[in-house]
C-alpha cells in the first residue's frame, strides 16, 4: 500500500491580495493549484448579522460561478466551500494574464489604430460573454478588466471571468445597466483611447442579450447621465 501522505509536500497558503472584503491566498487543494478566497469579519457589523451576510455572499458567489459555467462561460472550478472559515477553495487559472495587463501590453507596443484593431476580437468576446450572462439574469456586480483573465495565447480569446463576490441573480434592467456602466468607467479610466473597444463590447452585447438589451442600454444611458451630473456638481 502506498502512502501518499508521506511524500506530499505541504504547501502553505501564500497571501496574494488583501481586498476590502476578502483575502486571496495561493495554495494547493489535494495537489491542484488553488486560490483560497477568505472573507473576513467586519468589526463594525453585528456579529450574527455579519455571519449571515458573509454566508449569503459566499453562496451567491458559488452559485454565479456555476450558473455561468452552465451557460458556456468559463469561470474557475470551485473545489470546496467552508462556511466555518468563510472560504472558497477554487481552481487557480494557470498560464493567464488579466485583460487589463493584456490591453496595457498591446497599447504600449502599438499605435492607437493598430491597438484598436488588435483588441477588437477581444471586445467581441467580452460582449458575447456579458450578453449571455445578463440574458441569464446573472449580474456580476464588479466588472473590471482585472476581473477577466485571458488564458494561454490571447488570440485564442479564452476568457475566464472571476470575482463574483458582488454578484446577484435578478432580472432588473437597472442592475444590468449599472453592471455595464461600471465596466465602461473601469475601461475608460484605466485604459486611454478605448471608446471603440467599449463600443464593440456594447454592440456585441446587444446581439447576445436580445430579450432585454434595449431596456438595459436605455438604463445605461440614464446612469451615464446621472454620473455626469454628479461629476459636474462635484
Amino acid at each position, binding site marked *: 500500500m502506498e502512502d*501518499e*501522505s508521506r511524500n506530499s509536500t505541504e504547501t502553505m497558503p501564500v497571501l496574494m491580495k488583501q481586498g476590502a472584503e476578502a483575502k486571496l491566498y495561493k495554495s494547493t487543494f*489535494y495537489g491542484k493549484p488553488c486560490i483560497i478566497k477568505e472573507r473576513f469579519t467586519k468589526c463594525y457589523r453585528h456579529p450574527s448579522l455579519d455571519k449571515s451576510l458573509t454566508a449569503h455572499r459566499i453562496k451567491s458567489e*458559488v452559485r454565479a460561478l456555476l450558473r455561468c*459555467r452552465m451557460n*458556456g462561460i468559463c469561470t474557475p*472550478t*470551485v473545489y470546496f466551500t467552508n462556511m466555518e472559515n468563510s472560504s472558497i477553495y477554487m*481552481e487557480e487559472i494557470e498560464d493567464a494574464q488579466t485583460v487589463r495587463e493584456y490591453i496595457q501590453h498591446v497599447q504600449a507596443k502599438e499605435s492607437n489604430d493598430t491597438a484598436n484593431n488588435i483588441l477588437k476580437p477581444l471586445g467581441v468576446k467580452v460582449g458575447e460573454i456579458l450578453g449571455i450572462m445578463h440574458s441569464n439574469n446573472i449580474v456580476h456586480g464588479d466588472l473590471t478588466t482585472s476581473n477577466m483573465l485571458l488564458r494561454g495565447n490571447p488570440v485564442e480569446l479564452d476568457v475566464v471571468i472571476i470575482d463574483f463576490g458582488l454578484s446577484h441573480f435578478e432580472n432588473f434592467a437597472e442592475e444590468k445597466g449599472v453592471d455595464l456602466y461600471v465596466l465602461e468607467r473601469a475601461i475608460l479610466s484605466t485604459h486611454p483611447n478605448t471608446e471603440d473597444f467599449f463600443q464593440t463590447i456594447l454592440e456585441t452585447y446587444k446581439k447576445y442579450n436580445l430579450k432585454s438589451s434595449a431596456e438595459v442600454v436605455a438604463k445605461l444611458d440614464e446612469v451615464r447621465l446621472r454620473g455626469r451630473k454628479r461629476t459636474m456638481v462635484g
Partner: protein
Amino acid sequence: MSMRVIKNEFYMDSTISLALFRNVENAKEVRQNVMNGTFEGALLKTSMICDPFQVIVAANRAIHLKRQNKMITKNVHSEILFCLSPTKNISDSFRKFGLADNETSVMVVVADDIDGSTMSAICKCVKGELSDVQDVIHLKETKLIQKIYKIPDEELVVSKLLDSILSRISSKDVLTL
C-alpha cells in the same frame, strides 16, 4: 500504485483511503458486509466516477460535514455517497452512486482508516482484482454522468467533464438544480 491513502488537508488526524477492484465476482456479498456493519466503507459505482479526484472532493466534504456535526445522512460513508450526488434525495443518491449487486467493478472509499484494518478486511472479502485507482477513468459512462449531473452540452464546450462534476459537488448546499 494500487491503493491510495490520502492525508486529509483540513483535519490532520483524518485520512481518505481509495481502492479500485475489477473483475469482481461477489459484489452482493461485499455490499451485504457493509450493510450489516462487518466493515464500514463507501462502495461506489465505477460508471459514475470520472476521476479519483471526484471521489476525493466528495470525501473531503463528507468528512468536513461530519467534523462540523452537519451530516445529512447517518454516517460518514453514506455521506460520501450523498456528497457525490447532485440531488438532495438520499435514497436516490445511494441508488445512483452506490454499488449494485450485479456489478463487476467497485471503487471503495474508507474515511479515517488510520491503521488500514478496514481496507485489509475489505481486500480479504472482495473476490476480484485490485487495480490502480487511476484506472477508474476507463470505466466511466460519460453520457450517464452528464445526464445525472444535469450537464448541458454548451457547458462542455468550455468545461472539462470533471470540472463540471466538481462544481456541482462543491455547490450542492447552495444550489438546487
